């Protein structure tokens, strides 16, 4: 009967250990956060940018291009300098009761220059020209509802699906990755597709496009690629030896790994037609002692019982007469009548 006791290291349920664990983690985090290497990997977050109320300006008839002067003729739309703001705010900001949030000073940094929130900044891999799009699409087609935005929670940067949908309708000759991306190409692997990508891509693809555009495998791969690959490309350790002998060991360790590809009843189906490697010629011959190879110690699950489900269970073997003791040598009396191809050493295993 298996013990129900908890494995020692699982005693994290012990409150004292939990406290020690939590304190250790906090201490480790504090130590790491002061480490220069950690700061190099995870640089401290930039000061929170202060939101800008676009709607307060657009309702007064100010167009996007009035402040973002490059919006129609340059690659970058650009941000207004403080001097430009002050052409209106020089007088407006003198009002005594005006909240600081409505003054240009609210956006000033220590150097006196304005610090704009760059919510729409694209990654270095993206090449986008505002001038190329001017007159073809409105600003708000990409910067969704920016004219009505009060600056509290601006919409995030536009998703790539919006770009591709528009290009499909209005720029059918500009569909390739290189139109918008500097380095990305449909025939070139992204950087994260090297190394252990074959092991790690599953969670990424399952998180889906909703989490990140990069999770949209179908940008480069056909939807059916998953199936084909999972049925044709073997993991590196799936050698012939693995196929014939050790895959059972690995399945015993982590069957969930098998289920990545073997999603149907292939275990049963294959073992119904394929005998184990050990079942070669001579198997089951008298004195071959095949029972001992797998049955010691006896177990009611795994090994032989996997296939030989109808074999009478050894645990139901008839007991020895009560006057037999474990010290007795069975073959002394039973040598001629022993049923099993066994020398009797382990009769006690079954006949208690």
């Amino acid at each position, binding site marked *: 009967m*298996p*013990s129900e006791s*908890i494995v020692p*290291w*699982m005693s994290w349920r012990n409150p004292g250990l939990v406290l020690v664990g939590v304190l250790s983690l906090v201490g480790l985090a504090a130590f790491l956060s002061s480490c220069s290497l950690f700061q190099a*990997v*995870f640089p401290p977050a930039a000061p929170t940018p202060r939101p800008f109320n676009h709607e307060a300006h657009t309702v007064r008839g100010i167009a996007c291009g009035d402040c973002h002067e490059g919006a129609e003729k340059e690659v970058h739309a650009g941000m207004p300098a403080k001097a430009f703001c002050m052409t209106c705010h020089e007088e407006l900001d003198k009002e005594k009761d005006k909240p600081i949030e409505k003054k240009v000073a609210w956006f000033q940094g220590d150097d006196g220059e304005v610090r704009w929130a760059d919510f729409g900044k694209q*990654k270095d891999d993206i090449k986008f020209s505002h001038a190329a799009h001017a007159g073809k699409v409105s600003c708000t087609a990409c910067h*969704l509802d920016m004219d009505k935005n009060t600056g509290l929670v601006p*919409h*995030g940067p536009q*998703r790539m699906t919006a770009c591709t949908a528009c290009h*499909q309708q209005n720029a059918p000759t500009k569909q*390739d990755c290189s139109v918008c991306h500097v380095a990305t190409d*449909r*025939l070139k692997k992204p950087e*994260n597709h*090297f*190394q*252990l990508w074959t092991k*790690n891509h599953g969670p990424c693809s*399952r998180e*889906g496009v*909703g*989490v*990140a555009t990069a999770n949209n495998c179908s940008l480069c791969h*056909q939807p*059916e690629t*998953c*199936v084909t690959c999972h049925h*044709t490309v073997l993991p590196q350790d799936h*050698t*012939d*030896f693995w196929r*014939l*002998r*050790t895959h059972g*060991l690995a399945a*015993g*360790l*982590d*069957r969930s790994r098998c*289920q990545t590809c073997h*999603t*149907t*009843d*292939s*275990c*049963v189906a*294959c073992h119904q*037609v*394929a*005998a184990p490697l050990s079942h070669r010629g001579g198997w089951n011959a008298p004195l071959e002692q095949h029972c*001992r*190879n797998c*049955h*010691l110690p006896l177990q009611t*699950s*795994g090994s032989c019982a*996997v296939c030989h489900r109808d074999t009478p269970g050894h645990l139901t073997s008839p007991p020895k007469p009560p006057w037999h003791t474990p010290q007795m040598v069975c073959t002394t009396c039973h040598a001629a009548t022993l049923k099993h191809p066994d020398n009797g050493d382990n009769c006690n295993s079954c006949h208690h």
Partner: protein
Amino acid sequence: MITALVFFLCVQENPASPPLPPPVPPDSTSFLDPMHGTLRASYRYRATSGASDSDLYEFLTLSYGNPLKDLVTGGLSARLAEDTDGNRNVQGYYPYTSLDDRYRSFATQRLYTAYLDVHPDEERLLLRGGRQILDEFPEAVPMDGGLVRYRAGAAVSLSVFGGLPDNPYEPSPQGDSMYGASAEWLPDPGGRGRYRVEYLHIRDENLFGLHKDNLVGLSVDEGSGPFTFHARYTLLEGESRDLVARVTATDPEAEFQVQVQGTYVFHQIQALSYPLDPYASFMMNLEPYVDLSANASKSFGNDFSIDALFTSRQLVRAGVETTYNHEFKRVELAPSLRNCPSDGVSIRLTWDHWNSSATSFWTLGGDLSIPLHRDLLLSAGTSYALYSIDAFTGEEHDRVRMYTIGLKWQTNRTSSIDARFTLEENAIGSFRILEIGFRHAF
């Protein structure tokens, strides 16, 4: 097949033959094309002492239409296999017995997916019918049936489906059925959050009896700055089945990613319907366990990177370790070197070590890729594996040495030919594999 491939090779190399067609424009394999896909045909010859096997395989994947603009789209993936030497009915032990030997024909076919999508309301409504794989559920389930997905605005999407589970090795789907639903909410359609609830019912009548399983899944995805968080909790028959939580931190500037994942299986999992667990009926019950793993990936410039993985699994209850329920630790390291010593050359090493109370094994492998020409890639690799099996009869050490060499020739932008030879020396004997294949994307 060989003749055809040799003929094709000759045609490609013979200067007197007609010139190759001009390169296809870059976007010809775009997902915007009305019909595209891949076709792969390969011949595989395997041999060992006293036995050999020859097989042909053909794989086809096909996608039709563009879901962004076409009313009807579809997908198909299928495989044909032919046993060319008739060894499928060998009596007794045969080292190349395969699943395809279950069928009495020399040719077997497998239809993985074949479905049509109708988009009557652009992206808002999707009607899918046919053989499909429900891959957004906690278990990927192949199904013959229908699915309806409705997007209520940008934030909410609802799905319902029903049909027959696809169990390819059962002679009849009698007694099988499945249905379910899912709801998804994106709190900020431009953001990284995703919340899902899923329900799946499967009725499966198989070799080991009738199983009726109800699975409910709840999942959360969130992201902030360099961090993404994923958690999934499932209930089976109303009881907690498992909990998976994963945190990923990515810093593209530092070319660094680390991922920590924990899995907790709450209760013993007994035999289920095949689509939910094809193993318990064979490998007996799965005991509850805690699994902690961490993997990290770091690049140093464009040409060197290293990946590391550590996993530790502990059974929740002591004394229940059996043949198919082990505690183990696993470590994997994989350094990669690219463009060294010259452009296009890549070298990768992998070391993988599993250790449990009953067995341990480790593998060490190395791969080298060298571009011989702009369109010709030579690859070679070797690996060594040592299996130390503390079986019930004592310690056993089995060694596997494998050597492989291959060539891939990109004949044009959409087609390639490849050949690979593998030699494996192991405790059973010497095994040789020759595979020649052709792939065409259209």
